């Protein structure tokens, strides 16, 4: 299984990004997420919570406060989410994973609305996925 990963320039440098559908309790949307191997959590950030869900995210139970570039409240989302990706054979590949909501403590709109969601190390480890070397076309993939 190979899931296409893009190197996109965002916030001052290239990031590994992947498009996916996220289905959870009360939401179902498409987004592009940063693959962040340094994050212990996979997080649906506020930009997606606001634009793509109807969750009352400011009232969701808080899990913990973490520091990214500023403080973020990790929010408990009910149950596991389904994460669906397109692989190189045009299959829909589905995983189940615990996602958290992410809400900035600092209400700076620049951050709250610009920061994309994250696929963290937790997801990669749980599913034995890694980002492989570039192929002959210069593309990378999430592989297992």
């Amino acid at each position, binding site marked *: 299984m190979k899931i296409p990963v893009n190197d996109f320039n965002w916030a001052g440098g290239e990031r590994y990004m992947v*498009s996916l559908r996220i289905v959870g309790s009360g939401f179902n949307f498409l987004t592009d997420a940063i693959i962040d191997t340094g994050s212990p959590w996979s997080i649906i950030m506020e930009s997606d919570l606001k634009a793509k869900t109807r969750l009352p995210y400011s009232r969701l139970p808080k899990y913990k406060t973490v520091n*990214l*570039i500023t403080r973020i409240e990790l929010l408990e989302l009910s149950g596991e989410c389904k994460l669906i990706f397109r692989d190189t054979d045009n299959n829909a590949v589905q995983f189940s994973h615990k996602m958290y909501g992410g809400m900035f403590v600092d209400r700076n709109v620049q951050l709250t609305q*610009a920061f994309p969601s994250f696929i963290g190390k937790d997801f990669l480890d749980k599913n034995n996925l890694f980002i492989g070397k570039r192929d002959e076309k210069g593309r990378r993939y999430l592989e297992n």
Partner: protein
Amino acid sequence: MAAQIINDSVTVQLLSDFEKEAEWFFQKYNSFKDEYRGKYVLVKNKKIIAVASDFETLQKKVKELGLDITSSFIKYIPEKDIVAII
């Protein structure tokens, strides 16, 4: 639960389209960011087809265009560039 291949051709097509919009957006970002700073943009078929200063207005425009917000490529362009280590 391990990865499962599911029968969902609709999602495959939507993701394929979404990936193309994302690729266009990030590759062309520097060419349009100054024009749309502080605004929400909707990208469709590799073009910015709607712009609004607040999300609720963009949401209305998405509806008027007959699009589904949950599968639309929407981005907020910050007033100043964000530089982050993550």
